[in-house]
Every structure is written in C-alpha cells, then in structure tokens.
C-alpha cells in the first residue's frame, strides 16, 4: 500500500434505519495535505468522519488509516475535534488537557511542558488554572482545539473548527493548522464555509446527499471550470445580464455583480451587448470561479 496515503475509503456505505447517511463513498486522503471534506448540511460529512475515527463502523466497504484497517490502537494517532464539542465545566483547563492527553496514552512530565507551550501559542497561559466555565466561548473553542492536537497526532480531523470564531482567533488557528501541515501532518477539514476551505485546502471532496460529487485537488477543479466567471461593476444595462443565453447565474454583491457565463457564451459578446445597451462599465474582469460558485454549481447539477 502506498505510504503517501493516510486515509483510504473504499465503497463505504452507512445507514441509520431507513436513512442512508453515506452511500458507496470512495476517497483518498494523501499524507501531508489538507483535505477538505465539503458539502451542505446533512451530506454525510460527519458520518464519514466518525467512521474514519472508529466511532461508528461502516455497514459495507472498507476503511484504512495509515495503511491499516481502522482499529483502536490507531485512535491514538488521530486527533479529532468534532462539531459537537464541549469541556468539563468544573474542571481546570490544565487538568482537562492532561486528561484528554491521557486518553490518547500520552502522559508524564513532557505533557506539562507541551500544555504550557500550546497555551502560550493560543494566548491563554493566564487561564491555565481557571475552570472552563469561567472561559468565554471563543476561549473554550481554542482549548477544545488543543485537546485535538496536544498528543501530536499524525492525522488531525477537524469538523467545522472555526465556526463562531472572531477573525483574529480564526487567523490564529488557521496558522496553526498550516504549521501542522508543514510539519508533515495530514489534516482532514470538514466545513461548509467555502471561503475558509478555499484558503487552506489542498484537496477537496464534495459530498451531497450521501454521495461524492467531486474529488481532486483544488487547483485542478478550479482550472477545469476555466475563467468563465466575470466580476462586473457597472451602471445600467440590466436587461442584458438577465439573458439566459449569455449569463447562467448572477450574484449581486453590494456594488458589484458576479456573472457566470452560460455554456458557449462569449465574454466579448457580453461586453459588446452591455455597451450597446448604454451601460457605463467601471470594471469587467474575467476571474476564477470561487469554491463557493463551484460548490453551488456542482450541487445544483447533482440535484
């Protein structure tokens, strides 16, 4: 088996009663990369992750992690931050971190040093001996993040890690994730926040309605879409943009419009039509589609 592969799913299915959560899913997470598991709510992201972490077993298909069939011993090499997460309210931060490390069979003097280092890194050193109920929600979220990375896992799985964080802390955690990647760790990152995923993922897998829609590197998928998206800032010429023969999708922002060209339509034709219609054009730029656009397009196609 290829050692460059950290996680491999082969035609994995899982259902709860009548509800199929994951259907015939195959995917490959390469070592040392940030793998984005993307999809709308209820697409099967969390169930997929739980199977990788060995919390629940697939009905059929096989999962291998670090080249082995998933088993309990492997759990110690995985760090998992679930979407549903919390802390023991009455326990001190340091005791809490020590406990979670112990559950990964990491103990001893070294742990104390690591706890101090990590607390300093997330700027919570002063809160070391406070009970977690005294911490703000954002602080708690950073501590929860530490519980997933303290034991230095080779595979880190983060389910919506940044939801609800302010921009400063979001940036802080994002930096840590990218540092871990540079240190050779593999990261699976599940979210429906496309803007964040776009910035840190190397590879992505799009899930929709328990099935895979797309899997590959972010670069590839972007270039496969081509530059068929146009960023516009203009006054007038409204009717032209509503022509379905030219524009398949129109998104209006505060002072800008983003138009996705219809299949076979030519950007030059659109520009000429706008000028003919008497529009004053301040900006007309062909841009790469955002991951968000790709996501919406793919999901709509799939439906």
């Amino acid at each position, binding site marked *: 088996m290829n050692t460059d592969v950290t996680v491999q799913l082969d035609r994995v299915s899982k259902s709860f009663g009548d509800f199929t959560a994951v259907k015939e899913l195959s995917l490959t997470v390469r070592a040392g990369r940030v793998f984005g598991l993307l999809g709308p709510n209820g697409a099967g992201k969390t169930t997929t992750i*739980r199977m990788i*972490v060995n919390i629940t077993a697939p009905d059929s298909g096989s999962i291998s992690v670090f080249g082995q069939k998933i088993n309990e011993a492997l759990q110690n090499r*995985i760090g998992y*931050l679930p979407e549903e997460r919390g802390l*023991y*309210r009455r326990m001190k931060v340091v005791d809490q971190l020590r406990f*979670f490390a112990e*559950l990964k*069979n990491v103990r001893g003097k070294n742990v104390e040093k690591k706890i101090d280092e990590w607390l300093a890194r997330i700027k919570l050193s002063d809160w070391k001996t406070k009970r977690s109920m005294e911490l703000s929600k954002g602080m708690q979220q950073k501590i929860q993040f530490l519980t997933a990375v303290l034991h230095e896992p080779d595979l880190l799985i983060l389910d919506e890690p940044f939801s609800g964080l302010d921009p400063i802390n979001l940036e802080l955690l994002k930096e840590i994730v990218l540092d871990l990647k540079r240190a050779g760790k593999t990261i699976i990152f599940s979210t429906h926040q496309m803007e964040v995923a776009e910035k840190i993922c190397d590879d992505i897998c799009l899930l929709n309605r328990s099935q895979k829609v797309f899997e590959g590197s972010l670069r590839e998928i972007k270039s496969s879409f081509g530059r068929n998206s146009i960023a516009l800032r203009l006054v007038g010429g409204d009717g032209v943009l509503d022509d379905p023969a030219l524009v398949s999708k129109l998104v209006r922002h505060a002072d800008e419009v983003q138009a996705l060209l219809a299949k076979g339509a030519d950007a030059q034709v659109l520009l000429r039509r706008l000028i003919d219609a008497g529009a004053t054009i301040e900006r007309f730029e062909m841009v790469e589609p955002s991951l968000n656009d790709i996501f919406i397009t793919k999901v709509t196609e799939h439906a």
Partner: protein
Amino acid sequence: MTKFLAILKREYIQRVRAKMFIVSTILLPVVMSSFAIVPAVILNLPAGPMRVAVIDQTGKLYGRLEEALAKDEGGDQPDQNRPGPEMVDRDIQLDQVASVGPDAAAERAKLDDRLRAKDLDGYLVLPQDFVAHGKAEFFNNNPGDELSRRILQSVLTRAVREQRLIEAQVAPETRQGLFQPIELQSVKIGATGEERDSGGGFILVFGVGFIMYLAILMYGQVILGAVIEEKETRIAEILFSSVRPFTLMMGKLVGVSLVALTQLAIWATAFSVFALYGVNLLASRGLKAGIPNIPFVQYVYFGLFFLLGYFIYATIYALVGSMVTTTQEGGQLAMPIILILVVSFYLFLPVSRSPDSSFSFWVSIIPFSAPVAMLVRIVTRTPPFWQIALSLLIGFGTVLSIMWVAARIYRVGMLMYGKRASIPEALRWARQA
C-alpha cells in the same frame, strides 16, 4: 486499561475534591443523628411536673402511689414490665386530699375550682373498690394529653399491683422475685453443633441492607448524573475518538462507586470510634455489647453481597442515564428502581422463615433480590457453597451485561444527538452495531 484508569481517576478526584462531597460527608451524619435526637428532645421538652391531686377513697393506695413514683425516679434499672412509652417521661407531683366520707362532693368542687385556676393539672378519684375492680377516673382540663394519662396509668397500675400482692399476703422477697425479667436466648443448631447467637447475624444483614439502600439512594443519582455529564457538556464524541463506550461507562461506574465507598469508609471509621466509646460506656455499666459471633467467612460474604447489591442497582442507574439526555428526565425514570430495591428488602421476612424453600433459593439467585436474600440464608441455615458462588457469579455477570447494554445505547444515542430513547428504541439501539 490505562484509559479506564484515566477515566476512573478523573471521576474520583473531581468528585472527592468537590465541596459538595466534603459538606455531605460532614452534614449527613449530623442530619441523621438529629432525626433520632430532635423528636426525643421535643417530646421531652420540660413541661413542668404534672400536679395531680388524689382523692383516695380506698385509704391505702396513696402510699403505694408515692412508692411507685419514688422507684420510678430513683431506679437506674429500667423496669422492663412497665407499660407505656419508654422515651417520654414526666414528673408527677402528688397531693393527697383527705376525702373519705360525705365531704367528697364538696372536696371535688374545691378541686374543680383549683383546676380552673390552673393551680392543678388534674385529680384522680380512686373509689373504694378500686383495688378489686381497677376502675378509676382522672379529672382534668386537658383530656387530649394522652401521654400524661398513660404515665399516670402506668404508675397507678404498679401501685395497685403492689397493693393486691400485699393483700394476698405475698412475702416481700417473693414480690421482688415475681417481677424479675426473663431472657430468651435463641440457639442455632449448625453443622458443628450448637452456636449461641444473639441475633447478631440478623442485625448485620439488616445493617448491610440498610447501608446498601443508603448508598444507592445517595449515589444512584450521582451515577446517573455522571453518565449524562458528557452528553450535557457534549464531550461524548471527543471521548469516543479515544475510548470505547464500555470503557467509559465502566470507568465512570467504578470511579463514582469508589467515591461512595470512600464516604462510607469515613463514616464507618467515625462511627466505630463513637461505638467503641459507647461500648466501653455500656461495659462500665455492666452491659455487654460486642461484635456478633459469626464465622470470618461470613464477613467476606457480607462484603461481597454488599458490593453486588450496590453495583446491581448502580448499573440500572447507569442504564437509565444512557437512555436520557438530562438529569431531570433520568430522575423520573429512576423512581421504579427504588421500588424494586424496597421490595427486595421485604423478602427478608419470608426467606428468614423458610431459608431452604425453593422460593428462597430462587430469590437468592435472582440478582436484584440476591444480596439481601442470600445473606439472610447465610446467617440462618448456610446454603451449600455452590449456591453462594452461583449467586455471586450471576449477579456480577448481570452487572457487566447491563453495563454492556448501557454502553451500546449510550453510543447510538450520542450519534443521534440529544434524543431521548424510548424503551423499544433503546432495545433497537442496543442491537445496532
């Protein structure tokens, strides 16, 4: 195993360190002893002596009454034949009113006035034929005071009894001898012959049963709360990426149980110190009390069946905890558990009456009733060893099975997010992989 210990350690240390634990350790004995002491104190609140006037138409009972009263107050030896409540006592102040003859009506009118003036609590009229027929009247303005009436009746009974014996010309020594209390000793015929047993075994069974009941009552809810804790704080999923649900559940059960045992041990030590002091005190007064005379192996059985009883019921609380999402819900569901516990306690009686019946056999094998029933059998007619071993084996096997089922329900329930399981759902969840 190391993860099990990590969970156990957290559970134990967090709880023993908590203020709640320290407060309850100190407070509970205080509350319990005040339950015993306060009613007695209230009943014995000084009410002042009862002032009773006596119209003694027999002409010979007043002296006997005074004697009976004097004996009552001066006597260290409790009079075992004395009727009435032992705990309550009230001094009686007697006042003889000369009354033989036709003046009786006038005297009574005077006493009535004194009653109204609250100069007197009541007066007794002992008719001439009282010694023979034993019927007298007590006039007072507070007929609701049943306790005082009883005390008076008891004193009067003794006075009359004494008078009757004198009239029957019974010698004073014989009179003394007549009221010597008797002692009934129960002797057990065991395999090795006769063993004197003052019922100490029974008292021990009762004590073990009571402590079990107390421990369940106090710590059942704690176990329930401990199992729910990770659901309420949403930590469960993080934990399950590191430990198996069964390990988590067992760690919690054992951790909380060790807290319970710690608390019981503290109380037991404190109690022993007091008991030792008390025993010495009794010994100095010539009363003997001691550890019941039963074989050592039975103490081992007491320990084992106490643990079994505790764990059987504790695991049901864990099971309930695995099915619900909040402690409040759990509290309601847990009510029937106490009921089963109480019922199994009452099996004490039928089992002690016929410890060898097949009924006794089965209730001492069924885990929920085994702890009390088997102990009763052990102290009455010790059953063959294989039965004791079987009972323990089935019991602890049941504990593990319940925990296994609870762990499965817990895990599936966690995956379903905040949904309370109905019983059929719980069964389905337990079957699901």
